[in-house]
């Protein structure tokens, strides 16, 4: 629902207080409760996915079974493909647009801000109601191809991609860079590729990571349109063999952790960023 950027360690003016202040017991209690809520389901997932095994069998039986399944391989590969296509389509659409708005049409920025929050107002389950019949008449060829998911996910990634790029472009002196490049004889596309893109690297990687997280986890549209992506496969297998479903749940957890670790490492240089891209 929201992307959150938490400005990290601002200077602490009263460090001398730190030594003598004691943490009240209820603060400790809330922190402990939060840790419990965070960790108990994770522990249960690990425990559950390693149980229900005949003695003498490999403890990772359910993981091995599910990895061996050709259905898993094709579903996972499909999701990876869709994620990469979503990132590519999103970057191709958004980078030039946001760059152009910042450079030549700054008056359009409020409109862009508004459009970028629209996907929150119109969640996937609502959008698909209008989108499915429209796409079917618009292009029945596209409607049955998995690429259509990438094109739709670009919309869900829009808030995160737009905010990442907007913040990135705001942080650099765009006008000066462009004019300097122009005065050295560079064309505008060349300036974008050689001068602006390198300066937006952190924003692009951050936005792309969140986009991958969305595309890998999206269930609503994929299941309604009848594509067996990773999350749809997880659901299907989980309803027949709970252990395998939970094993795949642990894989999903690792994927989310990977994306968040990437964001964390990215933000460590300057400010720490905690992105939220919900796929519920």
């Amino acid at each position, binding site marked *: 629902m929201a992307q959150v950027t938490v400005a990290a360690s601002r200077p602490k003016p009263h460090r001398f207080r730190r030594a003598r202040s004691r943490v009240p017991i209820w603060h400790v209690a809330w922190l402990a409760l939060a840790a419990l*809520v965070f960790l108990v389901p994770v522990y249960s997932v690990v425990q*559950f996915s390693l149980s229900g095994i005949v003695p003498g069998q490999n403890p990772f039986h359910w993981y091995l079974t599910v990895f061996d399944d050709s259905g898993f391989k094709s579903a996972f590969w499909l999701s990876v493909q869709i994620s990469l296509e979503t990132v590519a389509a999103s970057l191709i659409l958004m980078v030039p647009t946001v760059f152009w708005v910042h450079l030549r049409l700054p008056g359009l920025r409020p409109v862009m801000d508004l*459009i970028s929050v629209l996907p929150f107002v119109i969640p*996937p389950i609502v959008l698909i109601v*209008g989108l499915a019949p*429209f796409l079917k008449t618009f292009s029945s060829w596209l409607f049955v191809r998995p690429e259509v998911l990438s094109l739709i996910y670009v919309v869900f990634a829009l808030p995160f991609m737009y905010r990442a790029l907007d913040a990135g472009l705001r942080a650099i002196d765009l006008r000066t*860079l462009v004019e300097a490049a122009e005065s050295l004889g560079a064309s505008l596309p060349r300036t974008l590729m050689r001068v602006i893109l390198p300066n937006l690297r952190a924003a692009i990687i951050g936005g792309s990571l969140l986009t991958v997280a969305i595309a890998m986890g999206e269930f609503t549209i994929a299941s309604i349109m009848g594509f067996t992506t990773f999350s749809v496969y997880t659901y299907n297998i989980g309803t027949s063999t*709970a252990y395998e479903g939970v094993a795949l749940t642990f894989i999903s957890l690792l994927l*989310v952790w990977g994306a968040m670790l990437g964001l964390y490492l990215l933000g460590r240089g300057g400010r720490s960023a905690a992105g939220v891209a919900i796929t*519920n």
Partner: protein
Amino acid sequence: MALAEAGLQADVLVAAAPRKRSRTRRWAFLGVLPFFAYISIFLLIPTGELIVGAFRTANGAFTLSNVKDIFHAPYPAAFEFSLELSALSAFIGGLLGFLVANAILHHGVPRWIRPMYLSFSGMAANFAGVPLAFAYGATLGSLGVVTTLLGHLGLHIYPSFSLQGLFGAALVYAYFQFPLMILLMIPVIEGLRQEWREAASNLGAGSFGFWRHIGLPVVTPSLLGLTVLLFGNAFSAYATAYALGVSNLVTIDIAQLVDGNMTLNPQDAYALAFGMIVIIVITIAIYSFLQRRTSRWLR
């Protein structure tokens, strides 16, 4: 420095050629045309179609009967359960998130707590949908790890508890709600100025006195606003509830109507989706109203 000067010179050069500049500006909108075309096809036109569709018969004539259908069984019960579930999960998530955010920011808490809880919050807030539902099945399902553990201790939570019930589902939703609240609340609490704390402390107020007379009054609009945001977040959730097996939810009713090429009853699906948009727009209006009240005090 040198770059800035170059920019200045370039500005002067451009200013010397006003004709060229105005011409580029006139055509500048062409650069955003692809974006607007894309957004129109995949977001704006479909949304417009569904809103118009909510007021149309299958033949295209204007009607209010689709919208009236929302108020007939089984939909009112679905809306009611959706609203209850969203409200309860927003309340649990909002309260716990606020208390934890406040604890994280206490100056006596060790340094490593903050990045660790923030990273965990980032992860948990993103951990939703099918995997979240399955994780809770493994935890508190009838064969779940915690259920079994409690059973060994003589505490049998089934059959009075169920993950498909209001409380069970709200507990599952809380897993992504309270970390989101932590992430959104931390900047708000940080906005409470250190000088206010010192002033209160000079006047003899303890921690409770500060929160009662200064902290809470300043933070309350934000606290309410963000809780409303969590409400909207839960209200639009579908995958988590579907994988949990919750049956009487608006989002799930919509999915049933659209599933299989929209042949069943698209008019009802349009009307239900329209009803959801109305509720989400109301929550966002309340949120932004409350947000504006807070920004008066917080930097």
